């Protein structure tokens, strides 16, 4: 079942895992001259790519536009519903970052490739084609939610989309992404795993262990650092000695690249390349620079940043950018795009009604799915 190239790659894993290549004697040396490294990292700036070079049709562009807008409108409604106390707990909004999720989802084979992320997960869920209904119902804590009301905002899951969550511990899910990729390689099914995490997670040891393991075992994983400049109220430069996160790739002998996450074309351009590399068992690290418009969670007034900073970023809005692009290139009209917006709003409104109507999980379900074992003897 293995292709020839995969067999070859498997052999590399052998060398890596089983010690010195070909049993040769390895002696550590100290050279007499200073050591000088040159490192090159690709960049994917905003506004640099056209839909033609990405091979996107008008229909593709409309679908991408609609998907980003769906995430935006969904979360705007979710925020409202939080205010009405229909949604409780932590609610972290992704608004402003939609080009990252949509661009990524449009760069993989959904249901074949895998995706895992942190708790700011509504955007990627909707990008992968999970329905607004099941997502809103989960926020409402209802039985028809994508995690049957057991996960909430931070813990969306969808097995059939190979969406492995939705994880609440900063950095804790990153090794899982590596393991998911490990299984893709082990099964030789050709899948890759996109492993998303925030800038804040770069402070966690698990992220660095994961990068090392992925590079060591040559696993089909793309690490995607969603650098939105803040971890709660901590700006990256207050937390990291080196804030150029793509550069960490070099420490683990992987390619790294810097991507403008406010332009869905830039995200797609980069992702396509590095997903293809991952399919050849070359992992990589992408730092995607993005921005969240809202506070960290619903209780955060975001006083640690200026209005000017926020307003400047909003001028780069990924949805407006795509809209202007389509209008400029005569690919759509204001009327058509407005109609899409109206349609999206309807879909989101319907999801609120769906979530309202969906029943609460029955109390007996508290004991369901703790174990696969059906007759586990819980203590009373």
């Amino acid at each position, binding site marked *: 079942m293995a292709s020839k190239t995969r067999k070859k790659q498997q052999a590399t894993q052998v060398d890596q895992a089983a010690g010195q290549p070909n049993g040769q004697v390895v002696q550590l040396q100290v050279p007499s001259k200073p050591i000088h490294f040159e490192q090159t990292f690709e960049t994917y700036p905003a506004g640099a790519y056209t839909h033609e070079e990405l091979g996107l049709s008008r229909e593709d562009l409309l679908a991408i536009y609609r998907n980003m807008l769906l995430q935006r409108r969904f979360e705007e409604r979710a925020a409202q519903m939080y205010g009405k106390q229909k949604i409780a707990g932590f609610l972290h909004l992704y608004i402003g970052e939609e080009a990252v999720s949509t661009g990524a989802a449009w760069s993989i084979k959904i249901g074949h490739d895998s995706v895992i992320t942190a708790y700011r997960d509504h955007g990627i869920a909707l990008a992968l084609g999970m329905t607004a209904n099941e997502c809103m119902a989960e926020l409402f804590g209802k039985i028809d939610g994508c995690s049957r009301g057991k996960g909430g905002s931070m813990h969306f899951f969808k097995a059939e989309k190979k969406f492995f969550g939705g994880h609440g511990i900063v950095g804790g899910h990153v090794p899982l992404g590596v*393991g998911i990729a490990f*299984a893709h390689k082990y099964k030789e099914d050709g899948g890759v795993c996109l492993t998303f995490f925030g800038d804040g997670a770069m402070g966690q040891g698990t992220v660095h262990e994961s990068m090392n393991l992925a590079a060591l075992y040559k696993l089909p994983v793309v690490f995607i650092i969603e650098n939105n400049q803040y971890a709660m109220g901590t700006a990256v430069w207050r937390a990291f000695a080196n804030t150029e996160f793509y550069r960490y790739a070099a420490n683990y002998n992987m390619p790294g690249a810097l991507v403008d996450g406010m332009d869905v074309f830039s995200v797609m351009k980069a992702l396509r390349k590095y997903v293809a590399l991952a399919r050849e068992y070359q992992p990589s690290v992408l730092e995607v620079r993005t921005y969240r418009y809202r506070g960290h969670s619903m209780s955060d007034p975001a006083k640690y940043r200026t209005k000017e900073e926020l307003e400047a970023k909003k001028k780069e809005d990924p949805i407006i950018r795509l809209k202007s692009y389509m209008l400029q290139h005569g690919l759509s009209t204001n009327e058509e795009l407005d109609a899409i917006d109206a349609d999206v709003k309807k879909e989101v409104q319907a999801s609120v009604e769906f979530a309202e109507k969906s029943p609460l999980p029955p109390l007996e379900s508290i004991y369901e799915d703790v174990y696969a*074992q059906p007759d586990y003897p819980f203590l009373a």
Partner: protein
Amino acid sequence: MAIMQFREAIRAAMIEEMERDERVFLIGEEVGQYDGAYKVSEGMLKRFGPKRVIDTPISEAGFAGLGIGAALNGLRPIVEFMTFNFSFVAFDQLVNNAAKIRYMSGGQFKIPIVFRGPNGAAGQLAATHSTSTESVYSYFPGLKVVAPSNPDDAKGLLKSAIRDDDPVIFLESELMYSMRGEVNEDPEYLIPLGKARIAREGEDVTIVAHSKSYWIALEVADRLAEEGYSAEVIDPRTIRPFDFDTVVQSIKKTNRCVIIDESNPFASVSSEVAFQVQQRAFDYLDAPVLRVTAKDTPAPYAKNLIEYYMPSADAAYEACKKVMYVD
């Protein structure tokens, strides 16, 4: 039947299950080229190759999480911790990811993984290298915890653990690895998780003890027998889920219970067993439940101190005499 060391029984279980199911693989520090820090996986790299016997860097959180991710995506990993003391570096992976993802996903994913390795004290290794983790891990709904006391149970239980669709913490012991015993060689010999073994029948007192403590229980039972008392010794084998029924049935006969548990005493396996016994068998008890545990301190280094720290046969013997009111 064959005579095997404990480590050989574990190895046999892993080999049989890896031959039976291609999705099973072994990953951990020194499991491959080095043949295992305690030689449990000796020869397995040669037999299965580096795709399925995988050496890792010293990254417990990383490779434990890798295992969980692989389990989520259809494989059945065996993750070896060099000792369970080092599992604390991976604590978040075990208690948040392995234990909870099935639940939080509404049952969409199963996590068939075994974390195995030596647990508990092993002589003068001092505090960081002597932790008994069964009380810690059995706290968490979503995990199963197994702690066998002999080679035959080790093999039958490990095979069941590997075939189980839930995450299993499988606790071995450095001090028992060289212990020999009869082992069933049938490749379909499975001991169900959650079932205790009545190791010795008796009338006068029930002793509950797992892993190394089980051997203390047998020693105490022998001493009591010399004096004309018969102790019933129960090895729970699985800590979570715990087979309280077997213990309660026994107490209905003996009306007395002593627990030997190498854990520290606070909020431990012995606390829970004692609570469950009083709840389920209060009317049958003729004496308070007593327990013999490690001291309520970190494990010390000095020979006399670590001996004093560990649950002893003398203390267990005294406890039995006390609940029988013959001290």
